[in-house]
């Protein structure tokens, strides 16, 4: 994918957001630990916490915190 195309896709995704049912930011924070532990355990995290994947694709702040928590749990005991 070319850089202009990538920027275009990024912009359109940001403007339109995810199309599926998604959690709110409050629900995301409430369930983030459950989702991350499920991911790290190799479980079906998206089935366990429906709507999380969609929210993380539409909310950059929550996505950053998800990535941090997941990476932290693989780094710290």
């Amino acid at each position, binding site marked *: 994918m*070319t850089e202009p*195309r990538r920027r275009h896709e990024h912009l359109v995704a940001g403007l339109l957001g995810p199309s599926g*049912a998604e959690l709110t930011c409050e629900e995301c924070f409430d369930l983030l630990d459950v989702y991350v532990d499920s991911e790290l355990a190799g479980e079906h995290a998206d089935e*366990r*916490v429906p709507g999380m994947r969609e929210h993380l694709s*539409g909310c950059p702040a929550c996505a950053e*915190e998800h990535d941090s928590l997941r990476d932290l749990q693989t780094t710290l005991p």
Partner: protein
Amino acid sequence: MPGSVPAVQRVTAPPGLDREAEARAWLGALRGTGAERDDAVRRLHELLLRAARFELGRRRAMVAAIGRETVDDLAMQSADDALAAILSKLDDYRFESRFTTWAYKFAILEAAVRTRRRAWQERELPIDPDAWTTLPARTLDPAEDLERRDQLRAIIEAVRTELSPHQREVLGALVLAEVPIDVLAERLGTTRGALYKTLHDARRKLRTVIGADS
């Protein structure tokens, strides 16, 4: 919770016994008294401080202009506030994750929000009232195919005709200017959740108008 955001089912699963035993030990000590509680609070604060430092370390680029002492202060403030939040929400822990995962998320949130706000504290919000008008010229490459150009033009027309001024302002700040949602929430005197609800409703309206959901 905002009513227009579709509700989703939360499925619970029984935690592992080791995880549950670990969590019960934490909860018992934190709800206890005397030296046992003091020790548990101290150990938890140490973990939260490590988590906050980890988060700040991930954001080196954002905090590059901040002095070492200030970064340490941010980490300590984040750990302090995370600890206070956790101690007031012990009854909210539901044994669906490791206790430390549950606790770490409070430190991550505190450190992330503080860092975003700190990085933007001297900056004006880059809100340009003409941003929507000039967007196609700024973003569309002549080589892009016609369908993509038409799609973006349709979205921009829907932004102009279908969204409220507040929805346009929020969408423009968060998506076009990429202002962190916590920073925008602070400037507008609202919350991340309320802003995301505005963003969610605006996006849903745009998807409906351009037929993206069909």
